[in-house]
């Protein structure tokens, strides 16, 4: 069983002249404990694919399976619940809640998911430590640097111990050194915890930290799958 399977997913927007095909018959398999890089230029549909995988967008046709759950078959409500408990999302814009501290941005998942607040609290503290944020845990996002905010976002994605981690352009607003640090961190968290993850990026330098790379161009996944340089 794969960690995640995308089966012939197509996503079409609009009708007639304004018809836009963001994704076309995309199929993808993500194996257990695999960290996949989804590589493509702007407008290639990679964020769309990520949204479909995470249940944020419904595909026009095709299915998505995460673990043994057919995500696309679930009701919207169940998809939301699934997302809260089983998927961790790191957004391009971090999207932290501006009036919550670093720690609270993680522990808020206790109210949103089914996990208990003690459990989440413990994990939050552990993650804060691992991510090097222990002495910034009571700071608000506006008091944190870009890199620190990114790490909080990663922490939030991991705090519910989800099976699947989805990361959208994690290095977009960071300098090379910081960006590399962040991707290395993501890779180690994902691998060490036995999780699977997909990272969307256009930065070629980052693929060395992943297990596998898949390219996407104009809504279509490219057939050639490069083998990893390490591992």
């Amino acid at each position, binding site marked *: 069983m794969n960690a995640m399977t995308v089966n012939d997913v197509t996503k079409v927007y609009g009708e007639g002249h304004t018809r836009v095909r963001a994704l076309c018959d995309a199929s993808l398999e993500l194996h257990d404990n695999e960290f996949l890089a989804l590589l493509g230029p702007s407008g290639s549909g990679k964020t769309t694919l990520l949204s479909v995988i995470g249940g944020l967008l419904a595909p026009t046709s095709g299915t998505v399976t995460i673990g043994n759950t057919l995500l696309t078959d679930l009701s919207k409500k169940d998809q939301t619940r699934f997302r809260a408990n089983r998927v961790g999302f790191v957004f391009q*814009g971090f*999207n932290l809640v*501006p009036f919550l501290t670093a720690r609270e941005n993680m522990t808020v998942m206790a109210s949103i998911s089914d996990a208990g607040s003690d459990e989440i609290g413990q994990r939050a503290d552990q993650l804060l430590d691992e991510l090097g944020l222990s002495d910034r845990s009571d700071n608000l*996002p506006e008091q944190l640097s870009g890199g620190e*905010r990114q790490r909080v976002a990663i922490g939030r994605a991991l705090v519910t111990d989800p099976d699947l981690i989805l990361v959208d352009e994690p290095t977009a*607003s960071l300098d090379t050194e910081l960006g590399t640090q962040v991707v290395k961190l993501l890779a180690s968290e994902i691998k060490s915890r036995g999780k699977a993850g997909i990272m969307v990026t256009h930065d070629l330098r980052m693929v060395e930290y992943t297990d596998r790379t898949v390219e996407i161009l104009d809504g279509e996944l490219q057939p050639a799958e490069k083998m990893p340089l390490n591992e």
Partner: protein
Amino acid sequence: MFVALRDLWRSKLRFGLLAGAIALLVFLLLFLNTLSATLLGFFVGAIENNSAEVLVYEDTARRNLQASRLEQSVVGQVAAVPGVSAAAPIGELTLTAEVGGSLTDISLWGVDLDGPGGPEPIVEGRSPSRGEVVVDESGVSEGFEIGETVTLVPSGTELEIVGYVRDVRYAVIATAYLSFEEWAAIYEAEFPGTPYVPLSLVGADTGPGEDAAEVGNRITASVVGVEGLDREAAAAGTPGVESISQSFALIVGITFGIVVLVVGFFFLILTVQKMRSFTTLRAIGAGTGYLAWSLIVQIVILVLLGSLLATVALWIATLGSNPAFPLSVDTRLVVVVTLAVLVFSVLAGLLSIRRIARAEPAAAAQGTN
């Protein structure tokens, strides 16, 4: 201007809600003003809108019409005071009357029909002759219509209604005007054996260029036992009215303050929401003046729109008014209220602009969160 209008158009719901809130609050203000004016008019319309410019009371009556009693000779004494061009007797009597088959109260005013205190302007019908009266037109709801006969109880005196006057109601009851001589005869019939027929007031007109209040003071000084007042002072001094006017003034004042505060506050909230766009605009070179101007344009459009809606709502409310409680849209009031709300809202909005001015344009470049 462009940015301001585009912004309004794009967020129709948000600004629609705001315009709606403004409309409601302005409506409240207009409604209160209108209602209080009508109510007070009911109490002292006859005094406030009396055709005599100066009203002379018995001084011990302390501006209470019903306690004021003067002898006929006072009329001549008042007429002799410099600045008085004419003086006439005014008598008021509250009686029971039968009209259109039912009994009701009536305030009967005996006046010099062509002199100070006479019923004018007559808005419909004609001036009364013997056996006739004119009534305040709000009396229509109690059955006082032109052509109807008013029968006084218990004397049985009959009077025919031949005309209407407006906004001269007294003490909330139906008010009628007739000649002083007839009124005096009615008084004697009502109170047989009365030592004399007392006047309630002496009405006086002033000569050209004379101030009514000053002439009133002169009368007070030169004639024994009286107090001369201009109409406003007389109306304000009527017992009970002071409390009601003060209460209403308070109500209107507080409402106005609140309306302005709330409108200003709404705009403050919206500005804070748009900080990001504002800083972006500043980053691309928009000056604070430009942004301030945009905001003011939005405030003006919304307040005007809200006021328009409020006026329409008020107009609809007046459709439900009846002669018993007439409501009308006072254009002057609408204009004054709109301007006042506009001015203060813009001032409140300028507070928001201070926030924009303080925002760092460089923050826009940082993009995310």
